[in-house]
């Protein structure tokens, strides 16, 4: 009888051991996949990264030279997107978290945000084309591209800001209101300063999201090649993600420009992941402090 019980116990232990093994293996597969991607991009891309590559425009129908216009383009587009989306996103989050009552209106607004977050990126591109480029007559321009990307990053910023606002202790608000401050004074002087680091983290995440997107700018801002750097927000522009796509699929010499493709991809992920790491580390520090 004792033996029997032991066997059951052993079996239960064993099944736990096996299942936990599966958990570990799946987590490891993710890590390995990420490492493989990094390995190939870094191993084949780092040699392309030279001073000329970073500071020169493409030459000889994009088979030589650098990617300076693309870097500038991506910076313009993603900064523009954040400038458009941050105020609206933060204000929306303030309403949702500080003013709104639980109810139907709130439920509908949230549903709108969730669904906006789920819209496919190519649909954003078509919307940008139909609305900003054609209907508002902005043309294919930095402005149209930045606004399209802004719409796309809006849910990211709202989400991050709400999280930051939720992390502000209720006692802060109560203390401020108890001293006779109005709701807005409380928000402006107490809640927002406390939540600011969290909101900035959200802004950084939005920035990195906007920098990496391709489909939304394909029809609204990015072009194959432009010889000059942009001089106004109504200019067309080159951008890193679109440049990778163009070189890899439609360039004149797809095989011969492989090193440029790897180099561009490496620059893009260093940019995007650098921003993300910044946000992750910053957030971890904040959590430790709280």
């Amino acid at each position, binding site marked *: 009888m004792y033996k029997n019980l032991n066997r059951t116990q052993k079996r*239960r232990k064993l*099944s*736990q051991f096996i*299942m936990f093994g599966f*958990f*570990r*293996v799946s*987590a490891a*597969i*993710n*890590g390995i996949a*990420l490492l493989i991607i990094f390995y190939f991009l870094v191993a084949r891309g780092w040699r392309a990264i030279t001073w000329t590559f970073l500071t020169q425009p493409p030459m000889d129908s994009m088979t030589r030279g650098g990617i300076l216009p693309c870097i500038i383009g991506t910076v313009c587009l993603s900064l523009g997107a954040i400038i458009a989306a941050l105020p*609206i996103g933060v*204000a*929306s989050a*303030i*309403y*949702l978290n500080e003013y*709104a009552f639980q109810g139907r209106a709130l439920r509908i*607004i949230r*549903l*709108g945000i*969730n*669904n*906006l977050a*789920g*819209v*496919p*990126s*190519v*649909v954003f*591109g*078509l*919307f940008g084309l*139909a*609305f900003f480029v054609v*209907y508002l007559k902005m043309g294919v321009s930095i402005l149209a591209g930045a606004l399209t990307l802004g719409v796309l990053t*809006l849910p990211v910023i709202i989400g991050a800001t709400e999280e930051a606002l939720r992390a502000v202790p209720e006692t802060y608000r109560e203390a401020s209101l108890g001293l006779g401050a*109005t*709701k*807005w*004074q409380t928000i402006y002087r107490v809640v927002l300063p406390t939540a600011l680091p969290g909101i900035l983290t959200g802004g950084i995440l939005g920035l*990195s999201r906007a920098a*990496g997107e*391709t*489909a939304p700018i*394909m*029809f609204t801002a990015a072009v194959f090649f432009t010889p000059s750097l942009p001089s106004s927000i109504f200019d067309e522009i080159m951008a890193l*993600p*679109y440049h*990778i*796509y163009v070189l*890899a699929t439609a360039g004149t010499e797809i095989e011969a420009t492989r090193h440029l*493709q790897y180099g561009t*991809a490496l620059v*893009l992920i260093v940019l*995007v*992941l650098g921003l*993300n790491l910044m946000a*992750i580390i910053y957030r971890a520090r904040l959590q430790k402090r709280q």
Partner: protein
Amino acid sequence: MEKSSHTGKSRYRTEKIIRITFFCISLASIATLALITIFLFMEGLPIFKEVSVKDFVFGQYWYPTDEPPDFGIFPLIIGSLSVTGVSSLISIPLGVLTALYLAESASASVRQWVKPVVELMAALPSVVIGFFGMVIIAPFLQEVFDVPTGLNLFNASLMLAFMSIPTICSISEDAIFSVPTELKEASLALGATKWETISRVILPASLSGITTAIILGMSRAIGETMVVLMVAGGAAIVPTSLFDPVRPMPASIAAEMAEAPFRGDHYHALFATAVVLFLFTLLFNLAADHISHKYKQVGASTL
């Protein structure tokens, strides 16, 4: 505001104005969603003067540039559904198991490393993943499986799985994390092993959250553009094998929009395809929203 703060009434009015302003701004998201819907339909609907809705959705042939053109997006829809289906066979187990690992079995120090991995996976730009699939995975598949092209359904599904794992994993993890500790402790106190607790208590309790995570992950996969544009192969056929090239809806839209004559039939047909795609993701997202609200995890009493 400082000046008027001595009179309660004007102070009240200022507060009200501020409140209303914030309310109006918070409607921006839903207004944008409405604008997206309106403009997609506005530019998409004219195609139905040329073909019927039935012929458009169930038509077998997509030859938009032929004379006369064929606008049947059935192969594109099947392309989208097949890459989404195959990718979720990979991403659901990996995503959910990783979430369980993070929430239940990993030590704090390992967690500290695995969590950023998942976050970085989510942050990788889709064009980079598409590029990777094109230059590394495609030749590899072609050699190992001895198929005519490495740019096919299987490759696209692999890359899409990589992209939807973070979504599935992080939302599932939140759901697992919010299972009340009393439930877990009660089960452990009754002598259940950790795994028995997970499979009989934690998983049933967090099922609605995990389902939401899976649906959102699939919605991400069906709408993903650059990956399917670069690695799916681009043939508008109904696939018969895992290694056939396909042309999912987003790929078709992204590839052809630049060449489609402005406001011609092809242009309208692509917008109509986007409407179909949009409706698919809307359906996924509404389903996810419905499940997460209807079966909301509130506390121990919900089990």
